[in-house]
């Protein structure tokens, strides 16, 4: 399945709701959460992370990974949390509307 426009940003934000993560962890979470249904290049995901940082929705900091390697960790900012809530509401309404329409036989 190809990704609808804007979906990746919401998923990335969602991936960070449980605390700081590096890019690889975000990628793994998205794969797990969508049961590998979504086809997206890892590069696109990183690009999204950097864009969200420029928007001020995430912050990044260099830290040390579980494997004792230097890694860049991303954290959701307050504004990012608000953005995620707003986008989640929009997406839910959208999906429900489309779903409802497709169900009418």
């Amino acid at each position, binding site marked *: 399945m190809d990704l609808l426009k804007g979906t990746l940003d919401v998923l990335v934000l969602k991936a960070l709701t449980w605390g700081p993560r*590096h*890019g*690889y962890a975000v*990628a*793994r979470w998205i794969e797990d959460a969508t049961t590998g249904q979504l086809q997206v*290049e*890892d*590069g*696109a995901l*990183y*690009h999204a992370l*950097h*864009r969200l*940082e*420029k928007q001020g929705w995430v912050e990044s900091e*260099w830290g040390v*990974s579980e*494997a004792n*390697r*230097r*890694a*860049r960790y991303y954290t959701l900012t307050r504004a990012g949390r608000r953005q995620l809530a707003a986008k989640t509401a929009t997406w839910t309404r959208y999906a429900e509307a489309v779903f409802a329409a497709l169900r009418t036989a």
Partner: protein
Amino acid sequence: MADLPHGIRRAFRLALGRPPIEQEVDAEIDFHLEMRAAELVERGMAPEAALAEARRRFGDTHEWGMAMSEVDRERVARSERAEWLSDLRQDLHFGARSALRSPLFTLLAVVTLALGIGANAAVFGVVKSVLLDALPYADADRLVRVYGRFLDGSNDRGPLSAGTVTDIAARQRSFVGTAAFATLPRESILEGDEPRVVQVEWAEPKLFRVLGVKAALGRTLRDDDAVGDTAFTVMVTYAAWQQLLGGDPGVVGGTIDINGITRTVAGVLPRGFVGPGGDADFYYPLDVRLLLRDPISARGSGWLGVVGRLKPGVTVDGARRDVAAIGADLAREYPRDNGSITLSTVPLRDSMVGDTRTPLLVLMASAGLVLLITCANLAGALLSRTISRRKEFAVRMALGAGRGRLVRQLLTESALLAIAGGVAGIALAEGGLAMLRRLASRALPSYAELSLDPGALLFTFVLALCTGIAFGLVPALSARRSNTQATLRDESRSATESRPSRRLRGVLVAAQIALCVSLLAGAGLLIRSLAALTSASLGFNAGGVLSVNVQLPADRYRSLEEQENFFEQLEERLRGLPGVTGVADATALPTAVMQRNGIRVIGAPPPPDNVLPFALYAGVSDDYFRTLGIPLRSGRTFGPQDGPDGPPTIIISESMARRFWPKGDALGAQMRMGPDPNSTPLTVVGIVGDVRNDPTRPDAEPITYAPARQDVRQSRFLLVRTSGDPLALVRPFRGVLTALDPSVPMRDAMALSAFLSDGLTGRRRPVVLMSAFGALALLLASVGVYAMFAAMAAAREREFGIRVALGSTRREIAALVLRQGAVWMLAGLVGGAAGVVVVARLVSGLLYGVRPLDPVALGITLLTVVACALVALLVPVRRATRVDPITTLR
């Protein structure tokens, strides 16, 4: 940048390798690929295949890496901008607070700056409107004016004859077009309920095309307007339309009566238009071809000017050579009329700016000097303030403010002060310009509008900002050098000045003294020059003389007898007024004689190369010399025998007699005047004292006077001498004139002395302004000297206490302080001497009767500066000698 030698990289601290943003992105991607590969290996892939698969899943690492770096760069740039702005806000806030904390210092600084910046803004306003602003013509930089230069040196910017003008137009190869006009507007009478004397200018219709001027109303003149003697059209200037015709928009196509002739108004010229010939109310179409019919008016008499518009690609120099060559040809073809002149070409702006350029540049330089002194002064003041604020800076640095940040903070503070001073300065400049507008409109070119336009305001703002940085930089850099730890630790010596800071302050004071000496020397020279100018006699006595211009309507006084009779009656009645001791008339006021004629002495060898010498010429009545107190040296003045039927006579000035009859046999000799070598000979019947026609020149130019009876004119200047106030005579004069003929208007009634002083206004103004600047500079420099000695004395108070305790006398202490400061003052005076040489050269063109290195002016300047400095240092030195060892050493 990649192939710079290593040494250069190190010298400029250029980063090696890629910038950090790209490095971080690479590291992040590497980390991801490793983690992904490790995951795949765990699931059973071979390591190499795993890495390849990880790369495949990532996509193009190079492309994505570039995209990520781009996003990061934008983010960093945006946050840097935000940080800079928030720093600036903080600096401004802090600066305003620190300015308010010491209100007296702030007030003084702002006032000082306002004076310095205001002086510059005002002078720049004038310079801009006169020298920089566009002339009221299209593409005015491509316009030039052609003059006749008299080879005898009497006139560099002389008029041209109709023949010369026509030949220039026909032979030139440099201009798109040329146009002729009368060099001087003529007085005429606009008839109506109340007749008015107006200025009428003759111009070829194509003048407006050459200048690129379009009518504001109606049309400009057309070539056919000038043809024949039937089409009487006229162009009205905006000012005349407003003031004389009531601004009536229906005026175009209507008629007005000037000098008894009805003319149709073709159009109204745009507001602000000034012709190259000077201010005029009306423009008549001129047909030069009509002038060519008569041999004398064709080549013999010159009263025309020529403007030309350069062809694209032709320079002023090119046109100058072209026109000069035509002039040389004409001198060969018409040796009688053109042999005595060459043709010179000058840019139109130069011709209209006239003599104001040098004084304006001198003033601009003076204002600049004042600003430099202001900067040095404030730098010194801020320096001591920085020293007393050293603790504050040390605390801020200890709390983490960088040195660069501190410098920025101080610069923001000084820029704030400067901008406040700039705003106040603009208010001052506006006031000053308003004053200049009232005082000096006569002395400036008439196209100049004195005002602070957006350009001048921008200049002032930039100036203020530069000033702030200039005087803030020195203390800011010295604050950077200070040692935080030592300052915080060592409390007792916090008032001591460091050696470099002391030296810096000395240099600043020396600079102020040097600039002040230069400026005052310039002012002193100009004052001396003005004094010489006004004290030397002009050769006549202007006190108590009323001068009035009276113009006869041409249609009512047609014959010369009628005209002569009218003036004789008028003068007879004026003599009857109470208090009147003398009445005379002349064709021109003394010091304002414009006409010059070629002179041929009968019996003397012809002039070399046929270069005719010129002399000033005026027609005067019998009582002219007695009324103005011009002494008769020998012979007689004019009388009834010099009538139109009597033998033609002439009276000459002493310098004229000396120059043309060096053997002293002028009286009774004969000469010819004018271009015609066969004109009627004139007999010299009298020699009178010299009159300096140009008051700004020390030597008197030769003058010839003809009897008014033999040179009858419709327009004359009446001169009435009274024992009382000449202006009290204006009303009786008008009464006499109205009783004689109410249709004859008078104008320009004024005391002759006021006329003379007006003529000197242009000379006086730069002197007054430069003196004011000099006084300001002196005040500022004195404050600077005071501040230096005060700080020096305060810094060494403890030391002086110890010295007094050990037995030093007050005299020794005073000598100690003086010696320290005297070095800098001496340095300042030496620097000033160098400045004086530069200033003297700059003003030398404005000096009259004074040598550029005039010992009196320079001596007084030096004494004034030294005296003021001594007064300024007296207080701090006295305080130093009064040091009480008990209080200072406690």
